[in-house]
């Protein structure tokens, strides 16, 4: 997979297919991005599992924190890593010991570890890096258009009024990655420099 510019179909396929998401680094502080991404994905119907060893014994929106991926005790479809690039490695290593393996490992906006991505992909896990699933879900469903964001999708169908727990249709006509190619190129240049 080219991790500089993902085709919409790749992201769409992931968000349409996964049901459970373990969020590593989920924070109970309601002003942290991990908190509101967790909350949004839960509102859109995903089965969310907060993973953070510092908060075991507490709950996040009614879901009990677990200390590590191995403590989840049931299969999980996707692991969303809310940690800096320098903390990705041990999480992926642990994910690779799970049985069954997760379908997807997702690293948050700003986080990228190409070596670990390659390792995960070599055992058939799909990897997304430097993206936010909340933003991508909002974009593909066009919900994010309320903030003036270019969703890069079109639709002539009547939009639903989103309600609590509702999964939105992500199958709008895609404008491809091309319309924001400049941004993708800039991200690629940055990766190459660092």
């Amino acid at each position, binding site marked *: 997979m080219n991790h500089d510019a993902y*085709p*919409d*179909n790749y992201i*769409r396929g992931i968000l349409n297919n996964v049901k459970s998401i373990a969020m590593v680094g989920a924070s109970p502080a*309601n*002003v942290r*991005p991990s*908190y*509101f991404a967790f*909350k*949004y994905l839960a509102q859109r119907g995903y089965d969310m599992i907060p993973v953070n060893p510092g908060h075991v014994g507490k709950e996040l929106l009614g879901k009990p924190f677990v200390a590590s991926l191995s403590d989840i005790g049931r299969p999980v479809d996707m692991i969303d890593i809310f940690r800096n690039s320098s903390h990705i490695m041990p999480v992926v290593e642990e994910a690779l010991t799970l049985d069954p393996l997760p379908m997807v490992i997702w690293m948050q*906006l*700003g986080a990228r570890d190409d070596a670990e991505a390659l390792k995960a992909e070599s055992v058939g896990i799909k990897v997304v890096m*430097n*993206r*936010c699933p909340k*933003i991508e879900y*909002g974009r593909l469903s*066009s*919900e*994010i*258009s*309320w*903030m*003036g*964001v*270019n*969703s*890069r999708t*079109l*639709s*002539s*169908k*009547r*939009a*639903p*009024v989103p309600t609590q727990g509702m999964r939105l249709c992500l*199958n*709008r*006509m*895609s*404008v*491809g*990655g*091309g*319309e*924001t*190619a*400049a*941004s993708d*190129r*800039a*991200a690629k240049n*940055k990766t190459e420099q660092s």
Partner: protein
Amino acid sequence: MSDRLPGFSTLAVHAGAQPDPTTGARATPIYQTTSFVFNDADHAASLFGLQAFGNIYTRIGNPTNAVLEERVAALEGGTAALAVASGHAAQVVVLQQLLQPGDEFIAARKLYGGSINQFTHAFKSFGWNVVWADPDDIASFERAVTPRTKAIFIESIANPAGSITDIEAISTVARKAGVPLIVDNTLASPYLIRPIDHGADIVVHSLTKFLGGHGNSIGGIIVDAGTFDWSTGGKYPMLSEPRPEYHGIRLQETFGNFAFAIACRVLGLRDLGPALSPFNAFMILTGIETLPLRMQKHCDNAKAVAEFLAGHPAVAAVNYAGLASDPYHRLARKYAPKGAGAVFTFSLKGGYDAGVSLVSKLQLFSHLANVGDTRSLVIHPASTTHSQLDDAAKVKSGAGPDVVRLSIGIEDKEDLIADLEQALSA
């Protein structure tokens, strides 16, 4: 669902717009409301904390305006956009995110006179110091860079003479200096030039001109290319540092490649207040649907009129980059192959008096201070749009006393030429 790239005209009609969720209305409704009800206290808190997508208050965002924003972002190839009350408001909001008092920005000397004035006087009072450079001399931009430089500002097609700016060359200077390149793309519109494709990091527009296109609504817009890394060196604290207004959120960390557009909305528009009326957004959106058709006609007419003027014995010179003899023709072919725009200047052998006489005799051309209308327009910049400049600055910006500016409309070109002919010969 296959990923494919719709063409410009398809985006001009469809991007950002979808049948209304509640009524099924196909045209974008005018959400003429100040405020939006919350589902509950938690929803309200999430929206105010920038944690959820949704509407709060029309000064911060409005569903009609949001369609306009996504449409222009799509046409320009940006990640997001923010509509504001005018092109001037767009410039204030952009620079507020980038400059602290005492900082500098470099601006091309050839700009709309109102921008020159805004930069020279209003921004000076904020402690934002403009440093002028010559768009025809790229090295002058390099020489102007100092440790306090925070941005470079140019027009793609420059007012008033329609000269073409070498965007790529100046973007190289900006990249080397580690500052964003802001391009005012008003006179080109994304139909003719997409500055982001040539290295712009931020695009601004007066929507009042070709995008709205009908001379009926004032508006402005800011497009975020998503190309600039705001986190390096703490140079842009509005984007890279925790924001006390929003519980310590760092905008770049939270919003990634559209953080600049969000900063403009939640730190600029929200606090400075230049919101666009949803009614104006609707009018401008309707205009944008025909942008490709209009813009081509504007350009074709402009070329015909410029050629006519160039061959007229009373005319001393025509400045139109669409003419093969024009010094900007090479740049026009590179940046604007579909046409060199529809705003240009010419001078008359009879000087200032002949210009005044011409303007008074024209029957179809309207004498007013605007460009980018369906109607053809004429003005004498030295006494109007550029009147706040001193004489030397007028000449440097292409608005000398003998210069007349035209904005060519979408009438029949034969009628425009006939009108000019009678006014010149009388």
